[in-house]
């Protein structure tokens, strides 16, 4: 069952800036979906549209199989949201702020108090629970935001950069908390550019670039794609001979490599399975008589896959533009024919 479904979701600001370009997003119940992309890719805009804080320019959003609009407070009651660097009323303390959030969510005062005590403990803010928020660090604000997002015991949790400003221990704790949350049949969607967090926490991943989803699928599939064709090794001995013969590992043009000292990072662009390439490399090592220090596949795999997707998208962007121009040319020539054949229709299209 889909918890989030968007269809051709588009957001254009002031007819000038395209923040989202026909985004089709599908998040299944119980999954932890990581939305990754460079700054300005449209992650926060996607969240603001999902929450009904902004109107889409075109397309539709459905949450829990119901259309989401600006006035759907009933759907928002089922959501928890953590914004990037959240803003809070600075004069409040975590206790008064969470009570306030509880009030907005319609929780009765007793239940809100039980819930806030539990949440402040789980985000490690019990010691500072009665201090004004204005003195809080970025990490403390993020943790308080996380507690606020969970006040209503939501079915869907939307987290925008949940580990931003956190120290390594805080990051680890937050990732563990996210995993626990999803374990209790909740759905979590996280926007981040920290790929290690996505790898550790998410079951599914979507890559956004310039407002478009350029990849969406299970994390395992992303890992598989990432591992394909990337081999990292260090050798000693007749390195020159090994380097000269690297291109024989596959057909011409299908082997790229980077060399730093005695380390090689080989990217194989062919279609053979990784095991076959590994076998060929070991054969080459044997043939050139170099000593192998280490060999491994898939280092920084998610980062590699992410960057590769972005590169592919840039290339495809040029192709798409060319194909769109072709389509326009074809349509224009069809229109010319129509004008010649059917003048009344032509005048109608001129008017419209």
């Amino acid at each position, binding site marked *: 069952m889909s918890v989030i479904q968007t269809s051709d979701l588009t957001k254009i600001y002031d007819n000038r800036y395209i923040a989202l370009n026909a985004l089709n997003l599908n998040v299944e119940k119980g999954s932890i979906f990581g939305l990754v992309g460079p700054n300005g890719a449209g992650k926060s805009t996607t969240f603001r549209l999902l929450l009904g804080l902004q*109107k889409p320019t075109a397309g539709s959003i459905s949450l829990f199989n119901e259309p989401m609009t*600006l*006035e759907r*407070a009933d759907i*928002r*009651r089922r959501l928890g949201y953590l914004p990037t660097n959240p*803003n809070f009323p600075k004069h409040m303390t975590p206790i008064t702020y969470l009570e306030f959030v509880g009030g*907005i*969510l319609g929780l009765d005062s007793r239940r809100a108090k039980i819930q806030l005590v539990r949440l402040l403990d789980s985000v490690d803010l019990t010691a500072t629970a009665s201090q004004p928020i204005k003195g809080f660090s970025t990490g403390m604000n993020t943790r308080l935001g996380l507690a606020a997002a969970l006040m209503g015991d939501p079915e869907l949790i939307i987290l925008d950069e949940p580990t931003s400003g956190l120290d390594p221990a805080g990051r680890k704790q937050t990732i563990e908390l996210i995993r626990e949350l999803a374990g209790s049949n909740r759905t979590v969607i996280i926007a981040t550019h920290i790929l290690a967090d996505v790898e550790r926490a998410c079951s599914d991943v979507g890559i956004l670039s310039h407002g478009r989803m350029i990849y969406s699928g299970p994390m395992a599939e992303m890992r598989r794609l990432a591992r394909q064709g990337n081999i990292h090794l260090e050798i000693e001995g007749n390195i020159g001979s090994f380097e000269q013969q690297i291109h024989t590992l596959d057909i011409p043009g299908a082997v790229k490599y980077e060399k730093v000292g005695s380390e090689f990072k080989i990217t194989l662009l062919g279609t053979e399975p990784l095991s076959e390439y590994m076998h060929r490399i070991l054969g080459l090592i044997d043939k050139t008589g170099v000593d192998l220090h280490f060999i491994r596949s898939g280092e920084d795999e998610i980062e590699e896959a992410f960057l590769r997707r972005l590169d592919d998208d840039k290339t495809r962007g040029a192709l798409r533009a060319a194909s769109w121009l072709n389509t326009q040319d074809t349509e224009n020539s069809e229109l010319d024919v129509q004008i010649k054949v059917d003048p009344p229709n032509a005048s109608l299209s001129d008017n419209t």
Partner: protein
Amino acid sequence: MQAFLTILKYDFGQLSQSWVSRIWIIVMIIPAIFLIFLANYENEFASETMAFYTATVLMPASGLAIAVLSASSINVESGIIADSILSRAITRTEYVCAKILSRMGFILVTYSIVIIPFSYFMLRYGVNDTADSSVFLGWIVIGSIFTAVAAFGILMSVLFANLLPAVLLVLLTVSLSSALMQFLGLELLSISAVIQELPEIFRGETLTSTGIQIIGIFLILTSIFLFPAVFIFGKKDL
């Protein structure tokens, strides 16, 4: 409904702790006490003294305070509206209506807290040339003017992201429109003309129907300003 009441309580709490409110109350109270003593020693007419107080203290001080309190109702919270409030289980209509009620409620409660004891002591220690009902009518007229100014301030707060242009526009509009309406002979629409008429209203020399007409005009203006505020905020991207 609980979300509406939570915002109402939160905003009312904010207003009661704000420095603008505290200064406003002090600025209204000190001259009022001075005028009560003066009316007692100099045997001043209550109607004239109350009208003088309104023209020289109440209107300028309250005009500024109401402009600031109302024009800051939405825009000063722009940072937290999306993050902490409207991303949760509350509709925009509930939010903006709670804001309107709390700002107008606070302004009218503060005004009443100062005006009711001031009128009582003025009628007791000054020369009482008024009727209770006409004093009541006079203060309701002023209250309706405050309501209209507050409604205009709330509209500006929805339209402008920054506080300063919103406040300046409220003050400028109130002053210019007042002079313009008086110049055009539309005296019931002119705040300065209504204030000039205040001693007569307090003495009961002005027809009650005229007083009610003035109240009606300013309440209609209030609705004219509030409907677009609610509508525009309901459609705005946050």
